[in-house]
C-alpha cells in the first residue's frame, strides 16, 4: 500500500494537480472577453497591469479595508494560507523525498518551525469550522461542500502531525497522510480549492477592470 500511494498514485495526483490547475488558468484567460466583460484588456494593457499589480499587492498583503474591518478573521486567514503553502513545500521530509526521486532539492525549514506551522493550520482550520457553525451569517451561507473542502484542506496536516510524532501506528498514519495530501492535490482543480490559482486570476481581472475602466481611467488607483 505504501509503495502504491507514495509511487504511482503520487505521480498520478501530481499530474492531475498540475494539468488541472494549468487547464483552469487557460480556461479562465480564454473565457475573458473584452466586450462581454466590458474591459479593454489588451488595448489598455498598461492601466491593466498597474491595476492588477495594485490589486494583488493590497490583498496578498494585509493592506485593505476588509483586514481593517475584520482584523481577527483576516489575520487567521493570512496565517492559515501562509502556513498551508510553506509547510509542505519546505518540510525537510518532503524535500528529501523529492531529492531521492528526482535529484533536485531546495531550501528547508526546521522541523520545529514546521511543527508550529502545522499546528497553526490545524488551529486556524478549527477556527474556521467553529465560525461556520457559530456565526449565524456564515452558517446561513454554508453548504455541505464548505465543510468537505475545509476537511480536505486540513486533513494532511492533522495526519502529518500524528505520523511525525508517531503517536499511533506510524505506518498506517503515514499512508493516510500521503493519501490525504493526494486527495487535496486531486481535488484542487475541481472544487472551490481551485481558488489556489483562481484567486490570482480573479484578483488580476478585477484589478484590470478598475485600472483600465473605473477609477484607473482617471488616474485614481482604486482605494482597496
Amino acid at each position, binding site marked *: 500500500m505504501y509503495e502504491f500511494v507514495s509511487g504511482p498514485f503520487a505521480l498520478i495526483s501530481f499530474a492531475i494537480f498540475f494539468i488541472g490547475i494549468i487547464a483552469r488558468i487557460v*480556461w*479562465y*484567460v*480564454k*473565457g*475573458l*472577453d*473584452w*466586450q*462581454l*466583460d*466590458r*474591459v*479593454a484588456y489588451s*488595448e*489598455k494593457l498598461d492601466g491593466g497591469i498597474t491595476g492588477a499589480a495594485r*490589486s494583488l499587492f493590497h*490583498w496578498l498583503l494585509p493592506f*485593505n*479595508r*476588509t483586514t481593517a*474591518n*475584520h482584523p481577527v*478573521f*483576516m489575520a487567521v*486567514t493570512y496565517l492559515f494560507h501562509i502556513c498551508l503553502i510553506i509547510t509542505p513545500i519546505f518540510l525537510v521530509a518532503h524535500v528529501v523525498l523529492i531529492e531521492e526521486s528526482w535529484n533536485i532539492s531546495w531550501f528547508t525549514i526546521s522541523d520545529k518551525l514546521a511543527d508550529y506551522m502545522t499546528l497553526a493550520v490545524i488551529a486556524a482550520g478549527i477556527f474556521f469550522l467553529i465560525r461556520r457553525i457559530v*456565526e*449565524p*451569517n*456564515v452558517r*446561513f*451561507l*454554508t*453548504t455541505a461542500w*464548505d465543510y468537505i473542502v475545509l476537511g480536505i484542506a486540513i486533513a494532511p496536516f492533522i495526519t502529518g502531525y500524528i505520523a511525525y510524532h508517531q503517536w499511533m501506528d506510524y505506518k498506517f498514519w503515514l499512508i493516510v497522510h500521503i493519501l490525504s495530501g493526494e486527495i487535496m492535490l486531486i481535488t484542487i482543480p475541481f472544487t*472551490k480549492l*481551485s*481558488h489556489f490559482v*483562481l*484567486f490570482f*486570476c*480573479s*484578483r488580476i*481581472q*478585477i*484589478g484590470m*477592470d478598475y485600472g*483600465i*475602466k*473605473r*477609477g*484607473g*481611467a*482617471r*488616474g*485614481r488607483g*482604486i*482605494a*482597496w
Partner: protein
Amino acid sequence: MAEEAKSQDLPPLVTRKPVKTQEELDLLLADKGVRYYKELEVFPVDTVALKKTLETTCKSRIRTWLEICAHCSLCADTCFFYLANDNDPTQIPSYKIQSTLGELVKRKGDVDTQFMINCMDTAWGKCTCCNRCGMYCPHGIDMGVMFSYLRGLCFSQGFVPYEMKIGSGMHWIYNAQMDVTVTDFIETCEWMAEENEEYYPGLNIPVDKPNADIMYTINAREVKHYPEDIAEASILFHLAGENWTVPSKGWEETSLAMFAGDWAGCKNQVEWVYDAMDRLKPNRMVVTECGHAHRATIIEGPYWAGIKTGQTPVPSMHYVEWVLEALETGKLKIDPAKKIKEPVTLQDPCNYIRNGGLCDVTRKIMTYIAEDFREMQPNREHNFCCGGGGGLNGIGRYRKQRNIGLKVKRDQILATGAKFVVSACHNCWDAIRDLEEVYKIGIKWSFLKPILLKMVIVPDHLKPKEEE
C-alpha cells in the same frame, strides 16, 4: 367574466422583446402595472433560450466568481441593504447572488416562473449595482457586476419591473428615457435662453454648432421636469466664455436601458450620442450632473458600441470635471463672501466615484464653494449608495424596500451634523429628497449648478446694461 374576456382580447403586456412602438408603450403606460404583474405571475420561461444565452454569455469571469465564493460572509456588512434591514442574512450579497444567478447557472437555465420572479425581485429590489461589495471581497468577486448581468438575463426573458420595461421602451422610441422629442428639446433650449437673456445679455444655447470645444449632453428629465437646469448650465457656460453646443440629436446621455438590462437598447442609445460626436466634431463632451448617465455613456457605452479601446469617440467628462477646470483656470470666479457658511456634506455617487474615480474632483470643488465641508463616513470610493441607485428610485414594486434602504444614507448624513447635502447626481438627488420626505430629518439638498450660480462673479462685460 366580461372583464376577463376583455383582457384576453388585449395584446400581452409581458413579452421577451423590448417595447419598440408607441402603441405598445401607450398600452403599458395605461396599465399602471396591474395587468402587467398579473401576466408576469404566469409568464413561461423560455428555458431553451435561457440555456443558450448562458452558454454564450456567461463566461469564465462570472462562473469563477460563483464557484470560488468561500461563503465567508465578509461581504455582509458592505451592503447597505443588509445594514438597513437589521443584518438580515437574506440580504448578504453572496446569498443574494448564489440563490439567483448561482442557481440559474447550476441548473443551466432550467428554472420556472416563480424562480425568475425571485431573480427579478432580487436583482432590482435588493441590489442597486453599486459595486461596493466587490471592493471588500478578498477574492475580488463583484456582485454588482453579476446582478447587472442577471438583469440582462431577466430582461431577455421578460421578467423585468414595469417601470424598467417602460424606460427601455422610451429609449427605443424617443432615444430618451422619457417621452421627450427632439422638438421638445430644442424648444426648451430656446425657451430657457429667452427666459434668461434679460439677465444675461447674449445668452444663447447653440444647437448643432460644429467644431465647438464642448458638446453638452443632458438627462431627459431636465427637459421634462427641470428646464431651469438647462438654463443654469447655459448661464455657467456663458459666464465661463465657453465655445459650446448641444446636439439636436444625441442630447440624451442617460440609459434606463442599462438599469433594465436591455443591452441592445444600451447600444442603440449610446450610438445616438456618439453619432452626434462624429457629426459635430467637438473637442470633448461634457455630461450633466447625473451619475448613471456618466457610467452609461462614458464608462460602459464604448463597449456596447463595440469600440475596442473602451473610449468614447471624443474625450468625455462629467460636469464636475468641467466645473473644477473652470474654477481652477479662473473661467468661473467665486465671490468668497458668498461661499456656503453652514455645515455642508457631499454625496459620492457610485457611478462616477467608485466606478469613475472622480472623488478628488468633487472635493476640490467643495473647497471653492463651502466654508464648513464635512465628510460622510465612509466616503469616496467607500461611500454607500444613496439607496435609490440602479433604477430603484423609479420602481413602484420595491418602494418599501427602497425606503428601508434609505436609512443608511440618512444616518450617514445625520452623523455629519450638516443639514445641507450637495449631490451632483440626479438619482442621488432624488433619493435624498425622498429620504427627507420619508424620515423628515430637516435637510436641504442641491445640485452644483444652482449653488455655483448664487456665488459666481458675473464679469462686467456680461452684466445687463441697466446695471452699468
